[in-house]
C-alpha cells in the first residue's frame, strides 16, 4: 500500500526538476526535454488521482497530454532547426533579438 502522497511527491519532484532544468540549462534541446519532464510529472499526478478517486477520465486526460506534448515537441523541434539554420547556435542566451 503506497500512500497517495508518495505518488504526488514524486510527481512534484519530477515537475520541479523540469523547471530547474528550464532555468539552468543553456541548450535549447535540453530545455525542451525539461518541458517533457514536467509534462511527465503531471501525467503521473493525473493517473495517481484517477486511481485514488476511481475516475477513469484521469487516464483519458493523460492521452490528451501526451498528444499535445507530441505535437508541441514536433513543432518546437522544427523551430529549433529553423533557428539553428539562421543563428548557427543552440545556446538560448544568444537568441535574444526580442530584447528592448
Amino acid at each position, binding site marked *: *500500500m*503506497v*500512500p*497517495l*502522497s508518495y*505518488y504526488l*511527491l*514524486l510527481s*512534484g*519532484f*519530477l*515537475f*520541479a*526538476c523540469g*523547471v*530547474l*532544468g528550464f*532555468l*539552468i*540549462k*543553456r*541548450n535549447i*534541446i*535540453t530545455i525542451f*526535454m525539461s518541458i*517533457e*519532464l514536467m509534462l*511527465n510529472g503531471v*501525467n*503521473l499526478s493525473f*493517473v*495517481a488521482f*484517477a*486511481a*485514488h478517486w476511481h475516475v*477513469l*477520465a484521469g*487516464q*483519458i486526460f*493523460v*492521452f*490528451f497530454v*501526451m*498528444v*499535445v*506534448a*507530441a*505535437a508541441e*515537441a*514536433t*513543432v518546437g*523541434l*522544427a523551430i*529549433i*532547426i*529553423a533557428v539553428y*539554420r539562421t543563428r548557427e547556435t543552440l*545556446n*538560448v*542566451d544568444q537568441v535574444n533579438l526580442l530584447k528592448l
Partner: protein
Amino acid sequence: MPSFHLILFLAFGVVCMGGAINLLAQRHPINSALSLIAVMAALAGEYLLLGAEFVAAVQVIIYAGAVMVLFVFVIMLLNAGIEEETKGSRVALLLGVPGVLIGSVFVAWVVLRNSGTEAVPIGALPGHPTDIAQLLFHDFLLPFEVTSVLILIAIMGAVVLASKPDASERKAN
C-alpha cells in the same frame, strides 16, 4: 516488512528521480535525452503499479518510442555538442531557483497535510483498453477529434518550419 507494492514503487521512483537529476547534471544533450528515456520507462512502471496498463503501454510506445526518438534525431542532425558556458541571466538563477524551491516546498506541505496516509492499493484502477476506448470514443469524442486535427496542424507546421530555405530563396531571387 514493506509491502511488495512499496518496494516496486520505490524502485521505479528511484530510477525516475535519478534520471531527472541526471538530466540536469549532464552537459551533453544526448546524455540528457537518454536519462529522460529512462525516466519515461520508469514512469511506465509506475503507471502499471497504479493499474493504468493502457496508459503505460502508450507511454512507452509514444513518448519513449516516438517523441524521444525525435529528440535524439534532432540532436544528431544538429550536431549538438557540449553545452557552452555562457552567462545568461542572473534573474533566472537568483529569482527562479528559489522560487521553484519555495513553490515545491509549499506544494509538498499541502500534499503531506491533506493526504498523508491514504493509500492507493496496487492496481487500484484497472485501465483496460476496452474501458478506456469506451470513454474515449463516447464521452471524449470531441477532444479526440480535435486533437487529431491538432496533430495534423503540427505536422504541417513542422514541415514548413523545417524545410530548407533554398526553395524560398530561389523564389526570391
